[in-house]
Protein backbone atom coordinates (compact mmCIF):
# COMPACT_ATOMS: atom_id res chain seq x y z
CA UNK A 1 0.00 0.00 0.00
CA UNK A 2 2.71 2.43 1.02
CA UNK A 3 4.52 1.79 -2.25
CA UNK A 4 1.99 4.05 -3.99
CA UNK A 5 3.73 7.01 -2.34
CA UNK A 6 7.25 7.12 -3.73
CA UNK A 7 9.73 9.74 -2.65
CA UNK A 8 8.81 9.93 1.06
CA UNK A 9 12.18 11.45 1.86
CA UNK A 10 11.34 14.72 0.13
CA UNK A 11 7.99 15.26 1.78
CA UNK A 12 6.55 17.11 4.76
CA UNK A 13 3.39 15.99 6.53
CA UNK A 14 0.82 18.22 8.13
CA UNK A 15 -2.61 17.58 9.65
CA UNK A 16 -5.43 19.00 7.56
CA UNK A 17 -6.89 22.18 9.03
CA UNK A 18 -10.02 21.72 11.14
CA UNK A 19 -9.46 18.04 11.91
CA UNK A 20 -10.86 17.35 15.35
CA UNK A 21 -9.56 14.58 17.57
CA UNK A 22 -11.28 12.80 20.41
CA UNK A 23 -8.90 10.33 22.10
CA UNK A 24 -10.39 7.20 23.61
CA UNK A 25 -7.23 5.90 25.32
CA UNK A 26 -9.03 3.23 27.34
CA UNK A 27 -9.83 1.52 24.03
CA UNK A 28 -6.52 2.36 22.39
CA UNK A 29 -8.13 4.43 19.66
CA UNK A 30 -8.61 8.04 18.68
CA UNK A 31 -11.66 9.25 16.82
CA UNK A 32 -10.98 11.89 14.20
CA UNK A 33 -13.53 14.09 12.47
CA UNK A 34 -12.84 15.64 9.08
CA UNK A 35 -15.15 18.63 8.56
CA UNK A 36 -14.00 19.16 4.98
CA UNK A 37 -15.26 15.69 4.09
CA UNK A 38 -17.76 15.14 6.91
CA UNK A 39 -16.87 11.76 8.35
CA UNK A 40 -15.69 10.14 11.54
CA UNK A 41 -12.63 7.90 11.51
CA UNK A 42 -11.23 5.50 14.09
CA UNK A 43 -7.44 5.38 14.33
CA UNK A 44 -5.62 2.70 16.25
CA UNK A 45 -2.77 3.71 18.49
CA UNK A 46 -0.05 3.40 15.85
CA UNK A 47 -1.86 5.56 13.32
CA UNK A 48 -2.93 7.96 16.07
CA UNK A 49 0.69 8.41 17.15
CA UNK A 50 1.82 9.02 13.57
CA UNK A 51 -0.89 11.66 13.21
CA UNK A 52 0.48 13.51 16.25
CA UNK A 53 3.82 13.72 14.48
CA UNK A 54 2.34 15.35 11.39
CA UNK A 55 2.86 18.98 12.37
CA UNK A 56 4.54 20.05 9.15
CA UNK A 57 7.85 18.34 9.80
CA UNK A 58 9.56 16.36 7.05
CA UNK A 59 9.27 12.66 6.67
CA UNK A 60 12.79 12.08 7.97
CA UNK A 61 11.98 13.83 11.25
CA UNK A 62 8.73 11.89 11.57
CA UNK A 63 10.61 8.67 10.95
CA UNK A 64 13.19 9.54 13.62
CA UNK A 65 10.51 10.31 16.22
CA UNK A 66 8.60 7.19 15.26
CA UNK A 67 11.73 5.04 15.53
CA UNK A 68 12.51 6.47 18.97
CA UNK A 69 9.03 5.66 20.27
CA UNK A 70 8.97 2.30 18.54
CA UNK A 71 12.35 1.37 19.98
CA UNK A 72 10.67 0.88 23.35
CA UNK A 73 7.77 -0.94 21.80
CA UNK A 74 7.24 -4.36 20.36
CA UNK A 75 4.67 -5.32 17.83
CA UNK A 76 4.20 -5.52 14.08
CA UNK A 77 3.51 -1.81 13.77
CA UNK A 78 6.90 -0.53 14.83
CA UNK A 79 8.76 -0.69 11.51
CA UNK A 80 9.34 1.77 8.68
CA UNK A 81 6.81 0.06 6.44
CA UNK A 82 4.18 0.49 9.18
CA UNK A 83 4.98 4.19 9.37
CA UNK A 84 4.51 4.59 5.63
CA UNK A 85 1.29 2.62 5.71
CA UNK A 86 -0.02 4.83 8.50
CA UNK A 87 0.83 8.01 6.57
CA UNK A 88 -0.83 6.62 3.48
CA UNK A 89 -4.00 5.75 5.42
CA UNK A 90 -4.12 9.17 7.06
CA UNK A 91 -3.76 10.90 3.71
CA UNK A 92 -6.39 8.71 2.07
CA UNK A 93 -8.89 9.65 4.79
CA UNK A 94 -8.17 13.36 4.43
CA UNK A 95 -6.55 13.67 7.85
CA UNK A 96 -3.10 14.81 6.71
CA UNK A 97 -1.62 16.38 3.63
CA UNK A 98 1.68 15.61 2.02
CA UNK A 99 3.75 18.59 0.89
CA UNK A 100 7.05 18.85 -0.87
CA UNK A 101 9.84 19.39 1.64
CA UNK A 102 11.16 22.96 1.55
CA UNK A 103 13.12 23.15 4.79
CA UNK A 104 16.47 21.58 5.48
CA UNK A 105 16.10 18.38 7.52
CA UNK A 106 18.45 19.74 10.19
CA UNK A 107 15.72 22.15 11.38
CA UNK A 108 13.67 19.22 12.58
CA UNK A 109 15.25 17.26 15.32
CA UNK A 110 12.27 15.75 17.09
Amino acid sequence: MASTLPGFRRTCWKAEPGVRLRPVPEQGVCLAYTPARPALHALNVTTWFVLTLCDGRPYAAIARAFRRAAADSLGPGSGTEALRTALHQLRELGLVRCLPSVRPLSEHTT
Partner: protein
Amino acid sequence: MSQTPRDLLRRHGAPLPRAATVATEVRTEGIIKFATVTAPSHQSGLTFGALHEWRSRLSAASLGELRSFLTKGATRPETLIDNWMKRRELGGLIGVFLETGSGGSVVRVLFAYTKADQSGEEINKAWAELVEKPKSEEKKASAAIRTLRSLMVQGQDFAESGLLALSTIDYDKVVGDRGSMPFQSVDSSKR
Protein backbone atom coordinates in the same frame (compact mmCIF):
# COMPACT_ATOMS: atom_id res chain seq x y z
CA MET B 1 -1.23 7.54 34.39
CA SER B 2 -0.43 9.32 31.14
CA GLN B 3 -2.33 8.01 28.16
CA THR B 4 -0.78 9.70 25.17
CA PRO B 5 -0.44 7.50 22.09
CA ARG B 6 3.33 7.37 22.73
CA ASP B 7 2.71 5.98 26.23
CA LEU B 8 0.16 3.50 24.92
CA LEU B 9 2.61 2.29 22.29
CA ARG B 10 5.29 1.76 24.92
CA ARG B 11 2.93 0.04 27.30
CA HIS B 12 1.01 -2.21 24.90
CA GLY B 13 3.18 -2.45 21.79
CA ALA B 14 2.51 -1.16 18.32
CA PRO B 15 -0.22 -2.87 16.30
CA LEU B 16 -0.22 -2.66 12.53
CA PRO B 17 -1.57 0.75 11.53
CA ARG B 18 -5.29 0.89 11.05
CA ALA B 19 -7.50 3.83 10.22
CA ALA B 20 -11.03 3.36 9.05
CA THR B 21 -14.09 5.47 8.55
CA VAL B 22 -16.76 4.78 11.12
CA ALA B 23 -20.30 4.31 9.86
CA THR B 24 -22.38 6.88 11.66
CA GLU B 25 -25.95 8.00 11.62
CA VAL B 26 -27.52 11.19 12.76
CA ARG B 27 -30.49 10.59 15.01
CA THR B 28 -32.48 13.05 17.01
CA GLU B 29 -33.46 12.29 20.56
CA GLY B 30 -36.87 13.88 20.14
CA ILE B 31 -39.88 12.07 21.40
CA ILE B 32 -42.36 10.81 18.86
CA LYS B 33 -45.69 12.00 20.11
CA PHE B 34 -48.80 9.96 19.62
CA ALA B 35 -51.17 11.59 17.17
CA THR B 36 -53.71 8.84 16.96
CA VAL B 37 -53.50 5.39 18.40
CA THR B 38 -54.82 2.61 16.23
CA ALA B 39 -54.75 -1.02 17.15
CA PRO B 40 -52.99 -3.22 14.62
CA SER B 41 -55.42 -4.93 12.32
CA HIS B 42 -54.45 -8.39 13.48
CA GLN B 43 -55.39 -7.72 17.09
CA SER B 44 -58.66 -9.11 18.31
CA GLY B 45 -58.80 -8.32 21.98
CA LEU B 46 -56.42 -10.12 24.27
CA THR B 47 -56.42 -10.52 27.98
CA PHE B 48 -53.16 -11.80 29.24
CA GLY B 49 -51.22 -12.50 32.37
CA ALA B 50 -47.74 -12.61 30.90
CA LEU B 51 -45.90 -10.74 28.21
CA HIS B 52 -42.78 -11.67 26.41
CA GLU B 53 -40.73 -8.91 24.89
CA TRP B 54 -37.92 -8.65 22.36
CA ARG B 55 -36.18 -5.32 22.30
CA SER B 56 -33.55 -4.16 19.85
CA ARG B 57 -31.90 -0.94 18.72
CA LEU B 58 -31.88 -0.93 14.92
CA SER B 59 -30.07 1.17 12.35
CA ALA B 60 -32.19 3.22 9.99
CA ALA B 61 -31.51 0.71 7.22
CA SER B 62 -32.53 -2.26 9.38
CA LEU B 63 -35.60 -0.42 10.59
CA GLY B 64 -36.60 0.19 6.98
CA GLU B 65 -36.07 -3.47 6.22
CA LEU B 66 -38.19 -4.49 9.21
CA ARG B 67 -41.02 -2.15 8.25
CA SER B 68 -40.96 -3.37 4.69
CA PHE B 69 -41.13 -6.95 5.94
CA LEU B 70 -44.07 -6.18 8.23
CA THR B 71 -46.11 -4.52 5.51
CA LYS B 72 -45.77 -7.04 2.73
CA GLY B 73 -47.83 -10.02 1.73
CA ALA B 74 -51.54 -10.67 1.44
CA THR B 75 -51.47 -11.95 5.00
CA ARG B 76 -49.02 -9.88 6.92
CA PRO B 77 -46.34 -11.47 9.09
CA GLU B 78 -47.83 -10.17 12.35
CA THR B 79 -51.15 -11.76 11.44
CA LEU B 80 -49.48 -15.06 10.57
CA ILE B 81 -47.70 -15.18 13.92
CA ASP B 82 -50.76 -14.03 15.86
CA ASN B 83 -52.99 -16.61 14.16
CA TRP B 84 -50.48 -19.35 14.92
CA MET B 85 -50.32 -18.38 18.60
CA LYS B 86 -54.11 -18.39 18.80
CA ARG B 87 -54.36 -21.79 17.09
CA ARG B 88 -51.87 -23.19 19.58
CA GLU B 89 -53.87 -21.51 22.37
CA LEU B 90 -50.77 -19.78 23.61
CA GLY B 91 -52.11 -16.25 23.39
CA GLY B 92 -51.29 -13.83 20.64
CA LEU B 93 -48.88 -11.37 19.19
CA ILE B 94 -49.63 -7.89 20.47
CA GLY B 95 -47.44 -6.41 17.81
CA VAL B 96 -44.19 -4.82 16.76
CA PHE B 97 -43.75 -1.33 18.19
CA LEU B 98 -41.41 1.61 17.75
CA GLU B 99 -40.34 2.95 21.14
CA THR B 100 -40.84 6.66 21.69
CA GLY B 101 -38.05 8.77 23.14
CA SER B 102 -35.26 6.70 21.63
CA GLY B 103 -34.65 8.66 18.47
CA GLY B 104 -36.91 6.32 16.54
CA SER B 105 -34.45 3.45 16.71
CA VAL B 106 -35.71 1.03 19.35
CA VAL B 107 -38.21 -1.63 18.39
CA ARG B 108 -40.12 -3.86 20.75
CA VAL B 109 -42.01 -7.00 19.85
CA LEU B 110 -44.64 -8.01 22.40
CA PHE B 111 -46.19 -11.43 22.74
CA ALA B 112 -49.05 -12.12 25.11
CA TYR B 113 -49.68 -15.44 26.83
CA THR B 114 -53.24 -16.03 27.84
CA LYS B 115 -53.72 -19.73 28.47
CA ALA B 116 -54.10 -20.36 32.17
CA ASP B 117 -51.37 -22.28 33.92
CA GLN B 118 -49.21 -22.80 30.88
CA SER B 119 -45.58 -23.25 31.79
CA GLY B 120 -42.54 -21.63 30.27
CA GLU B 121 -41.45 -25.06 29.08
CA GLU B 122 -44.69 -25.53 27.12
CA ILE B 123 -44.30 -22.13 25.51
CA ASN B 124 -40.66 -22.72 24.61
CA LYS B 125 -41.48 -26.14 23.16
CA ALA B 126 -44.20 -24.68 20.98
CA TRP B 127 -41.89 -21.98 19.63
CA ALA B 128 -39.09 -24.47 19.00
CA GLU B 129 -41.46 -26.70 17.02
CA LEU B 130 -42.64 -23.77 14.95
CA VAL B 131 -39.09 -22.66 14.20
CA GLU B 132 -37.50 -26.04 13.61
CA LYS B 133 -40.24 -28.49 12.62
CA PRO B 134 -43.24 -26.57 11.35
CA LYS B 135 -46.19 -28.53 10.02
CA SER B 136 -47.11 -27.76 6.44
CA GLU B 137 -49.87 -25.35 7.47
CA GLU B 138 -47.45 -23.59 9.82
CA LYS B 139 -44.70 -22.92 7.30
CA LYS B 140 -45.69 -19.32 6.58
CA ALA B 141 -45.89 -18.50 10.27
CA SER B 142 -42.56 -20.22 10.78
CA ALA B 143 -40.93 -18.14 8.04
CA ALA B 144 -42.48 -15.00 9.51
CA ILE B 145 -41.18 -15.57 13.03
CA ARG B 146 -37.75 -16.60 11.78
CA THR B 147 -37.42 -13.46 9.68
CA LEU B 148 -38.73 -11.25 12.47
CA ARG B 149 -36.26 -12.77 14.90
CA SER B 150 -33.34 -12.40 12.46
CA LEU B 151 -34.14 -8.75 11.88
CA MET B 152 -34.36 -8.09 15.61
CA VAL B 153 -31.17 -9.87 16.64
CA GLN B 154 -29.11 -8.03 14.05
CA GLY B 155 -29.63 -4.81 16.03
CA GLN B 156 -27.63 -3.59 18.98
CA ASP B 157 -28.49 -4.41 22.58
CA PHE B 158 -30.92 -7.14 21.67
CA ALA B 159 -32.71 -8.20 24.85
CA GLU B 160 -35.48 -10.58 25.69
CA SER B 161 -37.57 -10.43 28.82
CA GLY B 162 -40.75 -11.73 30.35
CA LEU B 163 -43.31 -9.59 32.14
CA LEU B 164 -45.79 -10.98 34.61
CA ALA B 165 -48.98 -9.16 35.57
CA LEU B 166 -48.22 -8.36 39.20
CA SER B 167 -51.81 -8.47 40.37
CA THR B 168 -52.29 -11.99 39.06
CA ILE B 169 -49.29 -13.71 40.58
CA ASP B 170 -48.39 -15.04 43.98
CA TYR B 171 -45.31 -12.88 44.44
CA ASP B 172 -43.88 -14.80 47.38
CA LYS B 173 -44.22 -18.03 45.46
CA VAL B 174 -42.50 -16.60 42.39
CA VAL B 175 -39.55 -15.10 44.27
CA GLY B 176 -39.47 -18.06 46.62
CA ASP B 177 -38.78 -20.47 43.78
CA ARG B 178 -35.21 -21.52 44.56
CA GLY B 179 -35.04 -23.35 41.24
CA SER B 180 -35.07 -20.09 39.34
CA MET B 181 -33.99 -17.56 41.97
CA PRO B 182 -31.20 -19.13 44.01
CA PHE B 183 -29.91 -15.83 45.45
CA GLN B 184 -33.25 -14.62 46.72
CA SER B 185 -32.45 -15.16 50.43
CA VAL B 186 -29.36 -12.96 50.09
CA ASP B 187 -31.06 -10.35 47.92
CA SER B 188 -34.10 -9.94 50.16
CA SER B 189 -31.94 -9.48 53.27
CA LYS B 190 -30.22 -6.50 51.62
CA ARG B 191 -33.35 -4.61 50.68
